[in-house]
């Protein structure tokens, strides 16, 4: 390893532990068998509207997180393992 501390690959890629554990949980949920799988996948829906405040004003371009599952995050982890 080049760095002093043995930083795990996901930390080096800028992910927090929370994102890492969410991806792992998503992978586990996708391994379930059918009736339990759809039930578990309903527990993955994310929806909220966040707006950052700058100079006492909320920014109009508020980031609305509406992704229904964490599939998009899987590409991040795949590219890291390919590098190693």
């Amino acid at each position, binding site marked *: 390893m080049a760095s002093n*501390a*043995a*930083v*795990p690959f996901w*930390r080096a890629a800028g992910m*927090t*532990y*929370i*994102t890492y*554990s*969410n991806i792992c*949980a998503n992978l586990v949920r996708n391994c379930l068998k059918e009736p339990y799988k759809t039930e578990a996948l309903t*527990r*993955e*829906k*994310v*929806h*909220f*509207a*966040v*707006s*950052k*405040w700058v*100079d*006492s004003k*909320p920014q109009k371009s508020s980031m609305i*997180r509406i992704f229904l599952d*964490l599939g998009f995050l899987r590409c991040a982890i795949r590219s890291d393992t390919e590098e190693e």
Partner: protein
Amino acid sequence: MAMAALRREGRRFAAPLISPQPIRSSLIAEEQAPLGVRSISTQVVRNRMKSVKNIQKITKAMKMVAASKLRAIQTRAENSRGLWQPFTALLGDAPSVDVKKNVIVTISSDKGLCGGINSTSVKISKAMHKLTAGPEKETKYVILGEKAKAQLIRDSKKDIELSITELQKNPLNYTQVSVLADDILKNVEYDALRIIFNKFHSVVSFLPTMSTVLSPEVVEREAESGGKLGDLDSYEIEGGETKGEILQNLAEFQFSCVLFNAVLENACSEQGARMSAMDSSSRNAGEMLDRLTLTYNRTRQASITTELIEIISGASALEG
């Protein structure tokens, strides 16, 4: 036209009757009725009674809905307590820690009609802000929910860092709250995060509570001063990670778990508060309905008496 005038007259004289003056109202009816008015209209009182009855039905229905939602979410909130308890056992909860950058996460509801829980949360957040203010210290707000945002905008606009709404559109789950926690961690610099929410003790009691999550650097600093955190060194670390890394992972996960529990408990408290608010509202509507019924009956009887008097005096005038 004449009927309209009559009705208008009736309304003008029925209005003072509605005020709660039980003894005088029948006298007022007979004194103020001018010549030509047949009977005092009870239409106004009847309209009011109808609307109050509708309100009572609606608030009763809202109470039932809140009760069923409470049942659904209560078990989840109680089960989620097991998520943060090991963290408190390991790292302790240090509300009195003195740090430079405090971030106050206020949790409130998006919808109203839930009693005073949002106001108490905001009151405690403001008190916390005052407590942690000082030279070289910075305190910022992260607001979850519309109601706290509306209240905090009024006087703490410049201290708001992030505001989050529409959290309860889908049923609450850990993934959602953890993504939210991730957002907060990425966008806000903090030494200590103070999460303020209403803890659900029972259907009638929700106490505002504060949970503190420290950043890993502060944990290191506090570990040197001993106490619970000082015992961290006695733990053996497996795997290839250093203590600093583990603390960082733990801090992030702790925040996510504590936030999840806080959001669930606040949702429970919201439903419980809504139940009791709607319950007292239906009870008040019932009492109002009773008073209006009495007034209505009195008005009705007064108008009947007036008619009878007219008829009888007219008949006796004919005879005599």
